[in-house]
């Protein structure tokens, strides 16, 4: 429990952090620059090619998927930029996963929680080329997933009943929608309070190609990335997260790929709306020999650290402020930095749609 004076100090820091955020359009990027991400990316393909499209297409059947892919090619046969597709293979499989299966059958749990993604973005510094990314993620375990809890599902069902219309075809009234929102938020909040730090494991893969003149026939390899991330609870007040990531990726400022390993640990103390955290990661360059004599690359830096605090600003959005040093590979990058930014969910991990 946070005592009132400390809470006031923290609130002040939050306001400072949030003000800084509003003053800097790229503030969220700043925090990402320093802090190791202790979660599988929400969309591995888009993250791999550093794309942030305004709209992501989520086709739920083959026809929609085919239409989405066809629309990604222009009249000259070139790949369009800004394409972003995310699909759940479960939608395309003739497979039944009941609520009981979901909480008792790990294979079916993984199938339902598998996501495949694809996206395109204009190549940095090249007006004609396009970077194409693809990837996927699978949640192996997530004890904080309320959809795997029988009691939660039953309560959720009762909450949905608020929206029932009196007559066929009637839309929910404003009063029904308002009552539903209050009830579902309370239900999720109660769950999150009790399970915010529960154990979880996710694996992800991403790869990419650079398409010269945006043509598929002129593709070059951008690299690959494999990641496993997870967390375990420490009683009801903390969480220990881990991350292991192998990356072999083209850096936009270099002619050769950087092959790196990242092994990290993150320790959180707090609760569902406030955390103190520390992060340490070991980030060796695996292909040092390729950069011998290259003054642009620091082959020795291998440790990153960050300490800070994060607050829930609003549902699903966290403000982060702290101090840290990244194992910057490119010579000339900053050393120790003060950071502030926004994260979506605890450890970038949005468990609840709130």
């Amino acid at each position, binding site marked *: 429990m946070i005592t009132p004076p400390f809470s006031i100090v923290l609130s002040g820091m939050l306001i400072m952090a949030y003000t800084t955020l509003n003053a800097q359009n790229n503030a969220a990027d700043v925090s990402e620059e320093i802090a190791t991400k202790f979660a599988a990316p929400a969309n591995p393909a888009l993250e791999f090619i550093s794309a942030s499209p305004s709209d992501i297409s*989520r086709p*739920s059947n083959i026809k929609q998927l085919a239409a989405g892919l066809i629309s990604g090619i222009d009249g000259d046969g070139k790949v369009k930029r800004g394409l972003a597709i995310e699909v*759940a293979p479960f939608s395309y499989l003739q497979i*039944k996963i009941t*609520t009981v299966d979901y909480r008792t059958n790990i294979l079916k749990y993984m199938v339902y929680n598998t996501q495949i993604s694809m996206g395109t973005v204009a190549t940095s510094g090249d007006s004609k080329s396009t970077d194409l990314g693809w990837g996927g993620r699978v949640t192996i375990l997530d004890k904080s997933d309320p959809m*795997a809890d029988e009691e939660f599902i039953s309560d*959720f069902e009762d909450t949905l009943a608020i929206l029932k*219309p009196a007559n066929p075809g009637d839309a929910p009234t404003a009063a029904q929608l308002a009552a539903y929102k209050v009830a579902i938020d309370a239900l*999720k909040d109660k769950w999150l309070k009790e399970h915010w730090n529960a154990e979880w494991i996710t694996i992800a893969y991403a790869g990419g190609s650079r398409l010269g003149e945006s043509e598929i026939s002129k593709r070059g390899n951008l690299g690959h990335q494999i990641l496993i991330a997870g967390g375990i609870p420490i009683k009801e007040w903390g969480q220990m997260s881990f991350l292991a990531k192998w990356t072999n990726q083209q850096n936009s400022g270099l002619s050769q790929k950087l092959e790196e390993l990242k092994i990290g640990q993150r320790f959180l103390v707090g609760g569902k709306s406030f955390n103190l955290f520390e992060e340490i990661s070991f980030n060796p360059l695996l292909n040092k020999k390729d950069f011998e004599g290259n003054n642009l690359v620091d082959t020795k830096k291998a440790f990153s650290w960050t300490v800070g605090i994060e607050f829930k600003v609003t549902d699903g959005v966290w403000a982060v402020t702290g101090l840290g040093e990244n194992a910057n590979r490119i010579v000339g990058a900053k050393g120790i930095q003060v950071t502030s930014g926004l994260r979506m969910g605890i450890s970038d991990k949005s468990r609840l*749609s709130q």
Partner: protein
Amino acid sequence: MNDPILLEEGTVSWDIVLSSPNAVSYRLWVRQPEKDWEIVKDGGLSDDVVDQGSHFATKGTEFAYWFGIGSTKPNSPYKLAVVLRQNGNVLVNGVLPEMGNVDNSGLAIKQKSISYKL
């Protein structure tokens, strides 16, 4: 979507099959020709038991459903279907599938009404 075709005037049985891990609340109605809508069943599907029941139907009888489908995972997929039978046989156009993704808030509302043909 074409309307279901009755084998005969008489009892139609309905099943609701949920094939995804979602919270679902539902309401079903029937309206006989020249009558008002009547609620046939209010329920939920979280218990993993196929919900079923029956109603009388003749040509022009209308059947309607409302589903509130929920998930805590934004944009996640759902699959369910209403199956209409007579004498154990699925009616022509008697499978009413509902498939898609919940929205960014984790909610999908699906409703439809059909009119039996004979």
